[in-house]
């Protein structure tokens, strides 16, 4: 993990002091709400329906157990004893008092954490593959360049008042687990023909009102030139992005309006200017950061591990959990465990203080003290010995997080929706809970196979509904919650945007409608191995439309 030096500590504590005096000035009336809002947003603080919400950054989704315990303690001391892990690999507290925020930020700073730029029209928390460093299909650990970007984007003087928010995602693997093409900039770490590591840069993806799969703007940027290239990308956007209409202000609209070729040309034209400014960090600095992500010391273990194989044979529930929740590790004898924060009927992504402490204890005992957050709102123990998996699974059962549903129909993404969010039009969590209960049967879930349901409570699409195999969008129709279905979205390396299938369903009817979609798929799949998304791409929307609305 990256460890702060005196400079990082100084910058973090100076930030706390700065925000502390900004809060004081706001409470004293020196700053109006209009003036204060962008400042508080850049410190992760929103006003929601019931209280302020504080969004804490978990850079590229990596946490130490010390940090996780601090998050738990803050939840207990300043909030209502729980936190919500988000699709941006962050953590949100829902019941925060403005006057206590400086104190909370100071507590976060004590464990090298912050809430910098988790909101506002600036560069947000960089997200990355949750299996960084342990995935077998990786060119390079994405956290190295993510940390370089985190530092470069922190309090960037030029890019803190952009037309709109700006999100980066990085993957170093062939399999895209970070949905990079749905980000303002997606970075794919690649090797060129000469064997050098560099970056393929996708620009102008996003969800929201206008979902766009980002086009490839530059197939290869050399490592030592990435930041100047990114500055050129950002500056073209900052100068020419639209500021007249909030719904057209994201970079995806600029790239779409200019066309990817013209946008790329303007970036090329700007690049020499940013290069000349010397913004690229020295190689020694990248090497310094890289050293923090050196692999831990692993034991040499021969597979198969007898006790592990034995447990799988003996216990079908454990075998199911291993099949769905344990990802292959690049080191023999290890596995990466995804802890499902999707218990049947639970609130996706929520964990209590006690649960956070218990997971921290588990990681210290079994996973070299590291925890990851996934953009699907689950947690990961990245380094568990196969021989320990059974014990980990049993302990997770005691905590309430042993559901073996990763990638299955009950592993639902849901935004906070109208239960918390001031932008929402409809509830999301309640729908996720009812769907989870409806599809609770483990055998049925396994029979349905890989199927991602993603729910957003408004068009801003924080629940990634556009990228769901089945997407659910909550809307307000004359004061009633109504749910529209989209089919065929995907957030991986085959990224696609779901198609709206027809008129929406009431809250009472939406679960039944999803059931019809699922049964239609089961009826038409060519074999048990054809997944929902494969089948949908083969047959298109027609059979699903017919099942939902009858023949027209």
């Amino acid at each position, binding site marked *: 993990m990256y460890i702060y030096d005196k*400079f990082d500590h100084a910058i973090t504590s100076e930030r706390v002091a*700065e925000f502390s005096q900004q809060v004081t*000035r706001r409470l004293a009336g020196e700053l109006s709400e209009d003036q204060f809002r*962008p400042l508080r947003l850049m410190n992760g603080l929103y006003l929601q329906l019931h209280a302020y919400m504080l969004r804490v950054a978990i850079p590229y989704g990596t946490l130490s157990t010390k940090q996780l315990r601090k998050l738990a303690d803050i939840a207990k001391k300043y909030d209502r004893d729980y936190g919500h892990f988000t699709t941006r690999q962050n953590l949100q507290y829902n019941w925060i008092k403005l006057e206590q925020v400086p104190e909370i930020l100071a507590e976060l700073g004590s464990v090298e954490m912050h809430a910098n730029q988790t909101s506002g029209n600036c560069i947000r928390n960089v997200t990355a593959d949750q299996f960084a460093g342990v995935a077998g299909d990786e060119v390079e650990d994405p956290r190295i360049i993510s940390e370089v970007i985190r530092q470069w984007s922190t309090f*960037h003087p030029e890019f*803190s008042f952009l037309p709109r928010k700006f999100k980066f995602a990085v993957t170093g693997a062939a399999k895209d687990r970070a949905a990079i093409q749905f980000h303002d900039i997606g970075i794919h770490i690649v090797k060129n023909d000469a064997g050098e590591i560099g970056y393929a840069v996708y620009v102008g993806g996003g969800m929201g009102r206008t979902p766009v799969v980002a086009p490839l703007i530059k197939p290869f940027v050399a490592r030592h030139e990435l930041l100047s290239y990114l500055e050129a990308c950002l500056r073209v956007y900052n100068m020419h992005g639209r500021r007249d209409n909030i719904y057209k202000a994201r970079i995806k609209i600029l790239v779409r309006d200019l066309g990817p070729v013209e946008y790329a040309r303007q970036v090329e034209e700007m690049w020499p200017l940013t290069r000349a*400014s010397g913004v690229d*960090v020295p190689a020694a600095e990248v090497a310094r950061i890289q050293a923090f992500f050196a692999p831990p010391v692993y034991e040499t273990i021969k597979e198969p591990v007898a006790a592990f194989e034995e447990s799988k044979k003996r216990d079908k529930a454990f075998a199911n959990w291993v099949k769905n929740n344990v990802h292959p590790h690049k080191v023999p004898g290890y596995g990466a465990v995804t802890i499902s924060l999707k218990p049947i009927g639970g609130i996706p992504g929520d964990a209590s203080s006690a649960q956070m402490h218990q997971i921290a204890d588990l990681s210290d005992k079994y996973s070299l003290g590291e925890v990851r957050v996934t953009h699907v709102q689950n947690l990961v123990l990245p380094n568990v010995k196969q021989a320990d998996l059974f014990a980990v699974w049993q302990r997770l059962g005691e905590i309430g997080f042993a559901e073996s549903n990763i990638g299955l129909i009950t592993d639902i993404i849901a935004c906070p929706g109208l239960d918390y969010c001031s932008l929402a039009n409809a509830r999301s969590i309640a729908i996720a809970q009812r769907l989870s209960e409806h599809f609770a049967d483990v055998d049925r879930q396994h029979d349905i196979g890989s199927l991602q349901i993603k729910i957003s409570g408004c068009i801003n699409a924080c629940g990634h509904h556009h990228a769901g195999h089945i997407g659910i969008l909550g809307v307000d129709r004359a004061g009633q919650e109504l749910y529209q279905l989209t089919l065929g979205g995907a957030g991986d390396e085959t990224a696609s945007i779901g198609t709206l299938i027809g008129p929406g369903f009431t809250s009472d009817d939406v679960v039944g409608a999803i059931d019809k979609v699922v049964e239609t798929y089961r009826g038409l799949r060519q074999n048990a191995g054809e997944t929902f998304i494969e089948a949908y791409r083969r047959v298109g929307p027609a059979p699903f439309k017919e099942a939902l609305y009858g023949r027209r």
Partner: protein
Amino acid sequence: MAVVDRAGPIADSWTRLADDQAPAAGATVIVSFARLKNEHNSLFSAAGKVGVEIAGDVKLEELEPFLPRLGLIVVRMNNMRDGRLFSIGRMLRENYKYAADMRAAGDLIPDQMLYLLRCGFTSFEVKDGFPIDSLRRSVAAYTHWYQRIANSATPVTELRHGAAHGGEP
């Protein structure tokens, strides 16, 4: 209206000239960019010092020929959230090597001024009653930062590897 720099209020010797108003001989005047383009010869010969006011949609390559002779550039943004100001400042300093006074004008708050200073601005046009204490505190909020920018100090990415600390702000 007042003019401040990083330390507080400063005397403002500049007079804003309407487009139909002739400059007094030797005067220190700010003109519109349109007027500068049309009348630069007479302006530079009549006035003592010439400054120009530009907005976010400026084409810097059109401004470039006049840069060596300008004594002030006022960049005006009517909305504090319009961040084009920051890019314009950096480009003028870093790429066009503009060296004289550069002033940000508009609906600014003290908390933005450190960033403006780092992007190369040297003075600010603010409303009367602007909180000077907050300005002084805000521009001194940070000792270090991560980016190599215009006239910023050496960034930590270089200090970590033995570069000397220096420069302002």
